[in-house]
């Protein structure tokens, strides 16, 4: 449905962010995220940053398992 790529923001200018996924860089639209800064991690789908995220999934899944 929607392939997502977690990537790090390495630059941002005029609503366009440069993201880096282990050395592969691309400009993506950052207009749909409020307050994005270099160093933030984002989820990218088809050239658009769709969400600001944490770097990995460890904390999230640990907390969910704790809840069970």
């Amino acid at each position, binding site marked *: *449905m*929607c*392939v997502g*790529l977690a990537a790090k923001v390495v630059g941002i200018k005029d609503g366009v962010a440069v993201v*880096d*996924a*282990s*050395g*592969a*860089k*691309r*400009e993506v639209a950052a207009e749909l995220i409020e307050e994005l800064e270099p160093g933030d991690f984002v989820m*990218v789908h*088809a050239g658009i940053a769709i969400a600001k995220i944490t770097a990995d999934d460890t904390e999230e899944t640990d907390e969910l398992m704790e809840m069970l």
Partner: protein
Amino acid sequence: MSEYVKLAHGAGGKQTSELIEKVFKAHFANPEFTADDAAVLNVGDGRIAMSTDGFIVSPFEFPGGNIGKLSICGTVNDLACMGAQPLYMTCAFVIEEGFPLEKLEMIAASMEKTAAEVGVKIVAGDTKVAGKGQVDNVFITTTGVGRLTEGFATSGAFAKPGDKIIVTGDVGRHGCTILLEREDLGIEADIKSDCAPLWNTVKAMMDATSDIHVIRDATRGGVGTVLYEIAAESNVGVRLEATQVPVDPAVAGVCGMLGLDPLYLANEGTMVVIAPAESADKVLEALRGDKYGQKAAVIGEITDVMPGSVVVRTEIGTETLLPQPGGELLPRIC
């Protein structure tokens, strides 16, 4: 088969085999006609290996090489896969009207250098110029002959259960480089084609052990396609360890962006080697002592489970099938 040729027929996967099977094999079949990278022929008292390859890469210059270097590497590597020392080559150029002479010289110089590296001589050539638009810049076809090594025989049909599967380097770099250069995908990555002439590398392995069953050049269609071919030709199963496959991080990043698997991307300086467990260590040691084999790794083994299939042990330890390669590589985005 559909009634006209599509790009997918040239992708090196199932459709390419279909085309060869139904059109070329139907007309060309003879006892020497081969499914391997090069044919083995009896000439006089001796035996030689012979191979030919056409190069249409666009763009003709790319990070890590150009069409000239590639045209030497491709044929040298096809011969080397048979354990044959490349001796002589011919090359045919089809050049587009208007192509800069300076570029042609650059290409020729690069061919000279690459050939010298493995001691192969370019002994004849052909030059044709086609009208503007009839070809894309320059196409090159090279043909090579090599001397087979006594007592050394490899074939895609020789893999045996228990054998180790080795790749001579990290996978998918050439395909990834060309994809980024050719398609206007706006992705930047510091990736160079692995394009390299591997005769000295193969020689190093052969000097370490004569007990090698299969050597295959993982060009079009990548390592995944080669493993499926070997599984079918040897009628064995393949078990791949997903976490052991060496991939350059930037290649992995590009593949993540485009929904592609590096196992299906072309290599031009990386081979798949299959050898019995006892000789695998020697092969690996020889490879790591060679400049093109630094990242060599064992990525799996041959089994007797599900002959014809490639099973992957995943990052979470489960087993699943590697999807069969086929068709044109298409970025998966939505």
